[in-house]
């Protein structure tokens, strides 16, 4: 199978995945991805035309709760993990100049 990912696709994938293209590593990344996709490509030889896809192994409906508040969590337990948090706000770089 020809390589499915080239440099252009890798740029697109990196953008979609929000991962940086690391300088000097793109050849190694391309090789690694194409190696996995070659392994995965073995499934292309199987005829699956009339097979329904399976998303959940037990094919059950998910059991849903009533849409009501049942518990609360201390906000400080969550915000202590934020890299930059002040006055109940999560800080990010300026988005609008």
């Amino acid at each position, binding site marked *: 199978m020809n390589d499915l990912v080239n440099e252009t696709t890798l740029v697109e994938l990196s953008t979609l995945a929000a991962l940086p293209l690391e300088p000097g590593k793109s050849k190694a990344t391309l090789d690694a991805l194409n190696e996995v*996709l070659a392994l995965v490509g073995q499934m292309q030889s199987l005829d699956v035309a009339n097979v329904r896809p399976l998303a959940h*192994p037990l094919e059950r409906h998910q059991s849903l709760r009533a849409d009501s508040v049942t518990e609360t969590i201390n906000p400080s337990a969550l915000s202590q993990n934020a*890299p930059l948090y002040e006055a109940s706000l999560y800080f990010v770089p300026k988005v609008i100049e």
Partner: protein
Amino acid sequence: MNLNFATLTDLQKALRNRDVSATELTQHYLTRIDALDPALNSFISIQAETALDAAGRADARLAQGDARPLTGIPIAQKDIFCLQGHRTTAGSKMLSDFIAPYTATCSEKLADAGAITLGKTNMDEFAMGSSNENSYFGAVHNPWDPQLIPGGSSGGSAAAVAAGLCAASTGTDTGGSIRQPAAMCGLTGLKPTYGRISRWGMIAFASSLDQAGPMTRTARDAAILLEHMAGHDPRDSTSLTEPVPRFSESLGSNIKGLRIGVCREFFTEGLDPAVERSIREALAVYESLGATLVDVSLPHTPYSVSAYYVIAPAECSANLARFDGIRYGHRCSDPENLQDLYQRSRGEGFGEEVKKRILVGTFALSAGYFDAFYHRAQKIRRLIKEDFVQAFEHVDVIAGPTAPTPAFPLGEKASNPVEMYLQDIFTISASLAGVPAMSIPAGLANGLPVGLQLIGNYLQEGPLLQAAHQFQQATHWHTLTPPEVL
């Protein structure tokens, strides 16, 4: 009694008879961790203070005759389970400072049953790996030979139990991550039916596959832990509502007439001859116990690795999108803008294997490739499930090797991802189908443990554990301990 390698049943008895106190037992394991773990690296964090506090409370309960089933039993938990107020890293730099704001349901259930958590065990980053070499906190070494890998991704949990650093541990299994390290460290490891144990508070890798389970010395111990980990949880919509049987109370009856399917696709070219010999001998033991061996086929097994390495990365790329460097997790320094913040935080926070799987998953879900990859993989998943459904019309349990080889040297397969992925070739199909499966010690190959995999029908953990227990009544493999560990 040798406390180092005592079973849960032995420890329960010793605690109730006051032969040992929970505090003495907890201190015993903490001392062993201090002495032995620097060479194994099986723990990421130790909770000595909270463990000893819990042990003190356990001793008070025991003194009052108010013990719960696991009161005073020290265990270790894979560092993928959130424990409120404790660092929970998933083996990643991304979460190296993350303090869990709540506790995973199954960990809470174990605590409610009286278990004491000694610490959190090392693992492949976000459970992605088969050798435990992908951890930000360094590789784990196999107690049977520190030059060898312990298996993965629950390698720390396996090594800790095998070295006698705790009585039992928890693990998670997405494509074999309980069973394969159990096999390589000479333990009993069980992946229950998908949905049997709540995934709430368990850091997600691939949500349609992830399942928690026990890693123990014996099938009886696995039954005891499973009873206290399983059960419906309204906080996990995929959690099953079926009642949880008392697995440990139905291990005793004999297995005469049990139909064991020997899956021909599990005896393939890549199977180590010494592993195959041990598995064939184990099957002969079952015959001697009155079981009938039946030839079965799971014809789509050869496609399982391909389908898995589409479905699991696709789900991982979606699950790990939450790590953006804003609300929690690693953040890069001096980001130029929001996009730079996202990309550099993720680039610095994730290891190479995780980034590769995110990119593979992003590819499989992207426009133009979705049908040819993700959709097709889901169709193959159905064919694999149907293989099991048909096989279980004729047999009660399916048996075969857990892994194609015994433990291999650290670094040996690190540069060959495909060879590493094929380590899970016998375990992945049960994960895709969602059926319960376990690994039990079944011999030695070149002095290293070999795991026999037993696969059961949906929700049939009981017969599976019974088959495993009866094998352990007739063999001594589960009693072997690593030669160098004191």
